[in-house]
């Protein structure tokens, strides 16, 4: 079975994972869960990069490494922010984080 035959299912899985991530971001209130949903979306994109790399060469792989680096950095900063908010509010419920309301 040629490697390209897995392209369709891979992209479909990627789309499903991405949609799950979007839905989680839209619907959940817990900041940690929301954060995990964002990671899910990133990894869905990674999956589609890997799948398409079979057609377009190594640039897809390189892109995945970049995305993973950025995601790691983002996780560090994001978790630090969530920790700071928790210290301030004793909660990480998004409903209560509305300091920027105009």
């Amino acid at each position, binding site marked *: 079975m040629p490697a390209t035959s897995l392209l369709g299912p891979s992209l479909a899985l990627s789309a499903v994972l991405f949609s799950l991530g*979007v839905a989680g*971001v*839209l619907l959940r*209130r817990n900041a940690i869960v*929301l954060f995990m949903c964002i990671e899910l979306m990133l990894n869905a994109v990674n999956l589609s990069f890997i799948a398409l790399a079979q057609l377009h060469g190594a640039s897809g792989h390189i892109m995945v490494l970049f995305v993973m680096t950025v995601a790691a950095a983002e996780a560090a900063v994001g978790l630090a922010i969530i920790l700071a908010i928790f210290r301030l509010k004793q909660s990480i419920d*998004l*409903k209560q*984080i*509305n*300091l*920027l*309301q*105009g």
Partner: protein
Amino acid sequence: MTFSHAVWLAVALPLAGFLVNGALALKRPRATGLISVVGPGVLIAAFVVSVGVFVELWREPPGAPIIVRLWSWLPAGRLQVDLAFQVDQLSTVMMLIITGVGSLIHLYSVGYMKADPGYARFFAYMNLFVALMLVLVLGSSFPVMFIGWEGVGLCSYLLIGFWFNDKVNADAGLKAFIMNRIGDVGFLVAMFLLWRAFGSLDFGYVTQHAAGTLARGGAIVTAITLFLFLGCTGKSAQIPLYTWLPDAMAGPTPVSALIHAATMVTAGVYLVARTNVLFALAPLSSTIVAGIGALTALFAATIALRQYDIKKVLAYSTVSQLGYMFVGVGTGAYAAGVFHLATHAFFKALLFLGAGSVIHAMHQAYHASHSHEDAQDMRNMGGLRHSMPWTFGLMMVATLAIAGIPPFSGFFSKDEILAAAFARGGQAPVYYVFYGMGILAALLTAYYMARLMAMTFMGENRTGERERAHLHEAPWIMTGPLVVLGVLSFVGGVLNLPHLVGGHAALERWLEPVLAPARAMGGLVMPEGSTEYILVGAAVAIGVVGLLLGFRATLGRRMVPAKDAAPDTGLALVLNRKYYVDELYDRLVVRPLVWLSRVVLWRGVDQGLVDGAAVNGSAWASRLAGGGLRLLQSGHVGAYVVLFLVGALWILRAVIR
């Protein structure tokens, strides 16, 4: 070093006087001794320079005018204007009149203004005026002349409103300034047109190239000259812009003598004489100049018949005599116009200074008795010849001069203008009308001057019992200049004695180099033989008849002081109220303008458009937009994510399409 190249000294000296006196006015206003030396001193020094320049020019054969270039003022592409002075026959004559008569008036002011708290300020302004007037006559190009033209207007404004604590005086100053601005626009437009036509604004260049550049009687030269003349009507108080001059009498009397009789108001006549080449190319403009001059001469003379304020009579007389000068230059008799300018400077300065002495005496008399009667109203005077014999005698000389009685100076100059108008009538019959108006105005001139003299100096005194003892002659520092002016008014005619009485028309020949270009374009055949005798005889007869009528009519009536006088009625009232021209201008120009400014420009444009729509409108719009957009900042992360998603999808859609 020659005097001609040091001509800038004549300007620099009064300017230095202005700086010194101005500094004193700010720091030591009561340093009267120093001010009395500096104020007239710089003028006398400038007069010495002027005499030096004149003598030098007299000795040399007439050649090209001497241009004294000081520095480059406006180097802008093709427009090159130097700050340069032009020494020639015409500017020398003007220099002598300005510094000579100016020195006398400055000396007189030492006595007249001595007690005034603004003594230093007065001399600062006067010196500045003389400096700028000299710039006006010496400027070698239109823009340099314009510096002086505007500058003397400024000094006139400052000096009319010298006693600015009284609102009437401040208003009179403003009126003079604004009316002059209208004329100045004409001067400016003329300069723009000249620049387009010639590409240069130097008098020398324009004089040389006028005949080759402009078509005789063409539209351009006519427009240029008419705009120049608009400037003249403002500065020299001709119809329709004359109404500021009578109001300018609000200033101190020496100011009226120097600025509003002898020098500044003659700037228009000087301008026409200076640009005689252009006016010679535009016969229509010249006719209009002469026509306006004749009309003004007659019109102002009728108003002077029924004024009671001694200075107002003289003011309208000045307007009238300026009209004569314009008849002269409009007729093409430029030398005659300048001649009358010179003699008028002598006798009108004398009249004003004499009136100043009278007012000085009246004021002191009323001051001594704490009375609040009008010190300038001739109805309160009468019989002053007993207490002020010198002033009476000298003013009589000036009266005979202005009335045109030979051999006084005014006779020669006025006669020459009228003869020239008559001669021009042979070519253009309308000039016969101007001649007739001039003759009629001469009759009225003699009449109102006789009335002035009779009301002021003759008959019974009406000042009041207590005041009479305080009326006395002015101090010698005031009477001295009057004597000199009296001599000049008497013998001023020798400047330009006509051939008729064995003279050589000296002034006319002296001015020949300046006026030759115009002469070459269209000469004037002056009447000779029997015609000349008849014209002279008519002029003299008119003057004598006017004087006799004036004295008889005034002395034949019993006069009462101003407070007991019955109000004028009928024609006398119309004349006394100056034909209601001020009221007419007020209704036609001032009020619509104020209404326009208040209702349209202030409430409509400024408050409505600028404040309402632009300033407050933009603030209101951004506040409204801000209020709407504020709602988007809900502070809920979920809402932001939804918006983010919608935006991302929208961009995705745009990219895919």
